[in-house]
Structures are given as structure tokens and as C-alpha cells.
């Protein structure tokens, strides 16, 4: 189970696709964070007393609340010692405030860092700008090197918009060449996509498929989410449906004021509240949203690829269409573009009996093997 703590709605950037802008600018207090953690632990104990609790620091920009992060970590470590329940931490940051001190401080150095970056300068600076509208690419260049030196497995999250889609393949290759190995890419689903930009998206995915094949045959280890997820949806039938977020079942988002929501997209929207850190989870509200989301979407009922499509994601649907139960046409177009390209790529690599492809996709021990390899060759120490 994960608790996503929205430490603050404030941010030092003004990314053009940000859905968090315009929210009230509250900041979480330590008391609210403590109450959230107590609630998370109690929820977890109902299922499995020894399961670990994930705490994700989210914003706005969570590093604006660095001292609060340290206090929360210390609080959790005290609880850990007393209860035996283990905590793990993650932060999702724009990177502009990340520094050596955060990555080495005894309280914060164990925090898993995920970082947002949109790739080449033209793509990144088109959207990821500061309060004066200036791009942040140049500022982040040394930070990326610093982060990867301390945390070589740090994932990078890249957002593709209709305006930046022509840089997609170059951006992915740029990040890989800088040393990023976990690339989590998604579209700005609420962007103004049209036939021409979708055609460009298809062209970019074809280029990326050639890039992916070349690297895999060269036995590079990396994760490029759009292809990995689609390939897994065939190799492990049903994984697409079972991996989807279960709206408040596996993770809960906590707003700065302590109100609870099923996912980050909903924070601040009263219609989607599922309780409060003090009063607890509103089971009826949680179940109502879950049921609404779990219903098969009428538009998709006859689709031949529906078991492998991400239309189950209520949060994406909400972001793009304003409604949990209404599938985004952009998502639909994306799935129809990426699926056949990913399948052809996988078929080609399988037919060539690429050992790296087979180990990565069929041997669930792969992450361990990879880690053992890295440890014995001195990576990630």
C-alpha cells in the first residue's frame, strides 16, 4: 500500500501541461502527515501486519518542504522500530531543488528519487519553465548527472505533448545517452492532439522501436515504459487489467489539508473525496468510485484489444475527459498506435532469440539477475 503525501500545492515551476496549477496553495503540517501515516498503518494491518508501507512525497514540488520530509522520515523510522512495519520512501520531483545534501543526508538518502525531464532542450524547454517562463533544461543538466551518480536506477518521467511529439525519439535517446535507464513516458492526454500529431506520434514510435531493438540486441538493460507495458500485456495475459490502479485500494493520495483522494489527479476535487486523515477512509465513497471505474466502458466492449488497453485507468480518463468513466479518445488513439508497433518489435526480437529480450520479459527473476550483475561489476554501490 502507498500513501501519496501532497506536501504542498506550491511549485517553483509553471509547466505548461501541469494539472496541479490553480489548486489552493496549502502546505501539509507534520500533524496531518502523522495522522495520514497512522491511518495507512492501520489500513495495512487489516490485511497484513508485516507488509511495508510506501510513502511518496509529492506536490507541487515536494522539495519546497525539505524539513517536513526529514521530520516525516524520522517519525516513520521511530514507528518502524516500535512496530516492525517497514517503510519505504519515494519522492517525485522536478529536480530543480535537488542537491548533494539531500542525496547524502542520513534522513533522506534512502529515498527513491523519480525525476521529471522531457528530454532534448527543444522539448523540455517548450513546457518545463519557471515562474518567469524560462526553460529549465540548462539548470537541470548538472542535477541529472548528480542524481544518476548517487542513484543510477532513478526513473525519469517524460511527458509528450502535441507540440513536442516530433522530439519524442530524440528525447528518449538523449536521456538514455545521459545514463537514464528507467524511462516512464506518457502523453499529455488533455493536450490538443489531432490527426497530424498522432501520425507524428506513430512515426516516433517506429523510430523508437528500431532504437529499442538495436539496444536490446546490443544487450543493453533499460526500461522504456510504453513498449514494456504493452509487451507484458501479451506475455502475461490479464496483467494490464490487474496492474491498473484500483482507485484507493492500493494507494491513497493525501491533500495538504488531510483530505483523502483515490489518486493524484483528484486532489482538491470534493466529488472524489474518500475521507479525511482524522475521520478515516470513507469506505462507501471509495467503493462507489471503484465500482464506477470497474464497469466495462460501453464504447470499448466490442474492441479486440480491450484486455491489453489502458482504458481501465480512471485517473487518466478523468484527466483527459473530466470523467472517471469516460475513456479518452487520445488514450484510445495512443493504444491503437503503440500496440502493433510493440508487438512487431517483440516478435522480431523473439524470432531472433535475443537472450536479453527473453530474460527481460519472460524471466521474472530478471530484476534480481540484473542487480546481481550490477553489484558484481560495481554499478549502483
Amino acid at each position: 500500500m502507498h500513501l501519496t503525501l501532497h506536501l504542498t500545492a506550491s511549485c517553483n515551476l509553471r509547466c505548461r501541461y501541469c494539472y496541479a496549477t490553480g489548486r489552493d496553495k496549502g502546505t501539509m503540517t507534520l500533524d496531518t502527515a502523522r495522522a495520514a501515516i497512522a491511518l495507512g498503518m492501520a489500513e495495512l494491518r487489516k490485511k497484513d501486519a508485516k507488509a511495508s508501507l510506501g510513502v511518496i512525497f509529492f506536490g507541487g514540488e515536494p522539495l519546497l518542504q525539505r524539513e517536513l520530509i526529514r521530520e516525516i522520515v524520522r517519525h516513520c523510522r521511530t514507528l518502524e522500530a516500535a512496530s516492525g512495519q517497514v517503510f519505504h520512501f519515494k519522492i517525485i520531483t522536478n529536480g530543480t531543488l535537488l542537491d548533494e545534501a539531500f542525496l547524502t543526508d542520513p534522513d533522506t538518502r534512502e529515498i527513491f528519487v523519480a525525476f521529471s525531464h522531457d528530454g532534448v532542450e527543444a522539448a523540455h524547454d517548450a513546457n518545463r519553465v519557471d515562474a518567469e517562463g524560462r526553460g529549465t533544461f540548462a539548470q537541470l543538466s548538472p542535477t541529472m548527472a548528480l542524481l544518476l551518480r548517487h542513484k543510477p536506477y532513478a526513473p525519469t518521467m517524460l511527458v509528450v505533448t502535441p507540440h513536442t511529439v516530433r522530439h519524442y525519439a530524440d528525447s528518449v535517446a538523449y536521456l538514455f545517452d545521459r545514463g537514464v535507464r528507467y524511462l516512464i513516458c506518457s502523453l499529455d492526454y488533455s493536450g490538443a492532439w489531432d490527426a497530424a500529431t498522432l501520425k507524428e506520434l506513430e512515426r516516433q514510435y517506429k523510430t523508437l522501436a528500431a532504437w529499442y531493438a538495436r539496444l536490446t540486441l546490443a544487450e543493453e538493460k533499460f526500461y522504456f515504459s510504453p513498449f514494456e507495458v504493452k509487451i507484458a500485456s501479451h506475455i502475461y495475459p490479464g496483467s494490464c487489467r490487474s496492474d491498473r490502479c484500483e482507485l484507493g485500494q492500493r494507494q491513497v493520495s493525501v491533500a495538504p489539508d488531510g483530505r483523502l483522494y483515490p489518486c493524484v489527479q483528484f486532489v482538491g476535487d470534493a466529488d472524489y473525496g474518500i475521507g479525511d486523515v482524522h475521520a478515516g477512509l470513507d469506505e462507501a465513497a471509495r467503493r462507489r468510485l471503484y465500482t464506477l471505474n470497474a464497469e466495462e466502458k460501453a464504447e470499448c466492449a466490442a474492441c479486440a484489444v480491450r484486455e491489453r488497453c489502458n482504458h481501465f485507468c480512471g485517473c487518466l480518463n478523468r484527466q483527459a475527459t473530466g470523467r472517471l468513466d469516460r475513456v479518452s479518445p487520445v488514450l484510445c488513439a495512443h493504444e491503437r498506435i503503440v500496440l502493433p508497433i510493440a508487438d512487431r518489435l517483440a516478435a522480431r526480437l523473439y524470432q531472433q532469440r535475443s537472450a536479453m529480450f527473453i530474460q527481460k520479459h519472460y524471466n521474472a527473476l530478471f530484476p534480481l539477475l540484473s542487480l546481481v550483475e550490477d553489484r558484481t561489476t560495481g554499478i549502483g554501490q
Partner: protein
Amino acid sequence: MEKLTITPVTAYGAPAYPTRGQLEAEPAALRRVPRRWRGQAVVLAVLTGAGVATLAVGTAQAVEKAKIVARLAPLFPLGVERPRLAGDVAVPTLLTEEDARAIVVEEAKKAGISFAPDVLAVEKVRIGKDGNRYANEFQQIDLTLDGTDAGRKIHYEIVTEADLAQWRGGKNAFCISTLDAAVTLREGLSQKLPEGTTVLFHDDGAREALRKQVQEFLAWLKAEGSI
């Protein structure tokens, strides 16, 4: 600007690469080792020691854990599967649970393996709902493995019609064979592997087919250098 719409895909051909379950038919593929691992003694030790075992891990403790060899033998599907009919609840099998166990014990004994019954329990194993390997929903079962040779750390389980009936709580299920159920159980067990080697057999009602599975398993153990 034209309006984008939801457009269902009317037909989509099966991809030209296997699912994890289908790859069982080609165990050699999983033994392909990337060139970069070939000089890596520790990686190879984990890879071969664990065989195709699947441990859901990724932390430093996991490296420690992997030193304890825990592996799953492949399945040895043989013969033609009996078709299952919709609503076919209790297909009478020719073998009782005791008969089936006796065959495994007898064959294993010839290779010096001596199985004691019902020694090892494995809890909360995740399997496809009703034992269906293709299910999108899952259920958890508690299992006591049918037999264990404690000295050699070898464990076996026979998936029988009785197991299937128990997992589906007496409900009708259709078209689920014991082999299908063994595939999903194998996937689930891979996350909960006891130390040693675990093998799953499936009882499809034919005495000789079960015996053949055991013989294939013993040949596999020999080829792996384990007996």
C-alpha cells in the same frame, strides 16, 4: 479541428511471440544467456541455481535470498489433453489421489528419492481464479505439497481434479484442465518457492501419462546434475 473518437479495433491477430505459459513448451529459450552475463560467475550461479524460478525481488536482501537455491522444474505436459465441457463439474478420474501419489513415490524411489507425504505447507499462493491460467482475476490458496524428500530438498505436488474442485468451491467451471491449473499454480508458486526443487505434475486421469511425467522430471534432474 476534427474530433477524435473512441474507435474499437475490430480484429487483431495473435502476436508472433509467445505468452509466458506458451514458452513452457520451449524451455531451451529461457536458458539463453546474454553474452554480457557469460563471464559473470555470480550471475550465472543465480541463473542456473534458480533455473526459471521467479522471485519477485529487487533489493539487496534479495541477493542474499537468491543464494539459497529455490527453483521450479518445468512442467512435463504429455499426451493429448482431455477436452472439458462447459458445466462439466466432476469428471470422474481413473486415479484416486492415493493412486497418483503412489505412482510418483514408486518412480522417484528408483532414482533414490524418498518422498514423505504432506510435510511442507505454502500459504497464500496466488492462482488464476478457479485455477484458470487465463483468468484476469486471482485467488489465494493455501497448499500442503504432496511430498518432500527433506534430505535432497525436492518437493512435488500433483494437481488433480479434486484440487480444481476445491479451488472453485464446488462451482461449475468450464474448460479448465489440470494442466491449465498447473500452469497458474506454477506461476503463483514461483513467488513463494521453498528452498530446493519443486515440481508440479498434473493428473489427467491416465496412469501411464503421470508415470511418464515423473520419469521426465527425473531425467531433467539428472541433466541438471542434481541426482
